[in-house]
């Protein structure tokens, strides 16, 4: 079986990172498997982890009273889930539910934070990688708000 460090190398998020840093981070990780319907994260609960999805599909959801779960986006192999461990209050802002069997690497957020504090160069590199992904997700969410396929664009997309 492959080691966590080898699996980190395979995942796009850590690609190109020096081998020593991958090994250093691997100390925070473990393999995890979720069956369809299992939750990787629940809104409001402590956000202790960061997931590298290796395979399977994960629905990022929020619960709307009197309606049920509303899926905002799905993630799959090659994606990451969760950056709430980076910032106080370290709580998940959404639910994440496995839609089929999901294989992931689960990295401990506290352990990662400590490693980033101990090695600022690594911390900066990781933050740049997170920033790129959050920017892409923001852009995708904005495009979704445009309701591109509707008859006409919404009057004021994103207005609250």
């Amino acid at each position: 079986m492959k080691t966590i460090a080898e699996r980190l190398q395979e995942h796009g998020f850590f690609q190109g990172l020096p081998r020593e840093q991958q090994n250093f981070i691997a100390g925070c990780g473990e393999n995890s498997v979720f069956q369809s319907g299992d939750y990787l994260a629940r809104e409001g609960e402590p956000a202790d982890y960061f997931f590298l999805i290796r395979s399977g599909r994960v629905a990022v959801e929020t619960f709307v009273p009197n309606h049920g779960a509303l899926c905002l986006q799905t993630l799959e192999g090659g994606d990451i889930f969760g950056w709430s461990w980076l910032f106080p209050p370290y709580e998940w802002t959404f639910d994440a539910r496995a839609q089929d069997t999901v294989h992931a690497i689960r990295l401990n957020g506290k352990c990662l934070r400590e490693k980033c504090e101990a090695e600022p160069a690594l911390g900066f590199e990781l933050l740049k990688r997170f920033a790129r992904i959050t920017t892409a997700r923001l852009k995708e969410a904005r495009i979704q708000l445009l309701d591109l396929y509707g008859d006409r664009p919404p009057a004021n997309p994103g207005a609250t």
Partner: protein
Amino acid sequence: MIPRIYRIERRTEEYPGAFTVHLAPNGEDVVSHDFSPGQFNMLYAFGAGEVAISMSGQALPGRSHTVHTIRTRGMVTSALARLREGEEIGVRGPFGSGWPLAEAANKELLVIAGGLGLAPLRPVIYHLLNQSKPRPIPRFRLFYGARRPEEMLYRSELEAWNREMEVQLSVDHADPSWHGNIGVITKPVSSADFDPKGCVAFLCGPEAMMRFSIQVLMERGVSPADIYISMERNMKCGTGLCGHCQWGPNFICKNGPVFRYSDVRNWLGIRAL
């Protein structure tokens, strides 16, 4: 050019507000209606007017039938929507340039469609699947984005295509009964495994969706010269005479509707013409 009279042989509802009609020439005078994928006809709803609608069926030589998928928008498309099987439509065409399939020879073809934009690309998919082996276009895949699963065109065909080619579907919104991707179609395009230097992309959908998809393709390293888009503008004559569809130096009906992105990128950026 005078419209020929066609009869609606078959009419199917794709989803509320979008339907597909199979048209056959009326009467004895059977004419062939050869076309290239990407071309369009002017469909005439008697008493209401004419609109440009792409061919969405198979481009088979010598065939007299023509197939169109139409979304109800305003007066003319609503008049077309009210017509039932057996009723008549005026047809002029085919018009415009088609998708440059020859440009994709020996390359990978990325077909990227949004919403109703799958209609003008369906003849491309038929063409790709019908190629005799060894296939001139060896690798191809479809990325199709829609608002909701219920608002996807050709749903049973999508399933069948998925068995023969790679099909990536994504919807903006869905209830839990949908087990596919939720999110914008640009995401699967950005993470797909293709060689940006060895591919050609055909795009059709709302203009904003095409712009965002082009951004992603270019971020991946696809050359603007390898990206083709199909443009829509209101049309009158369809033959390059009235100037109604002018877009920069081009008439969309005659020089388009399919354009190479590198040739028109300056015009696509202009906010009002």
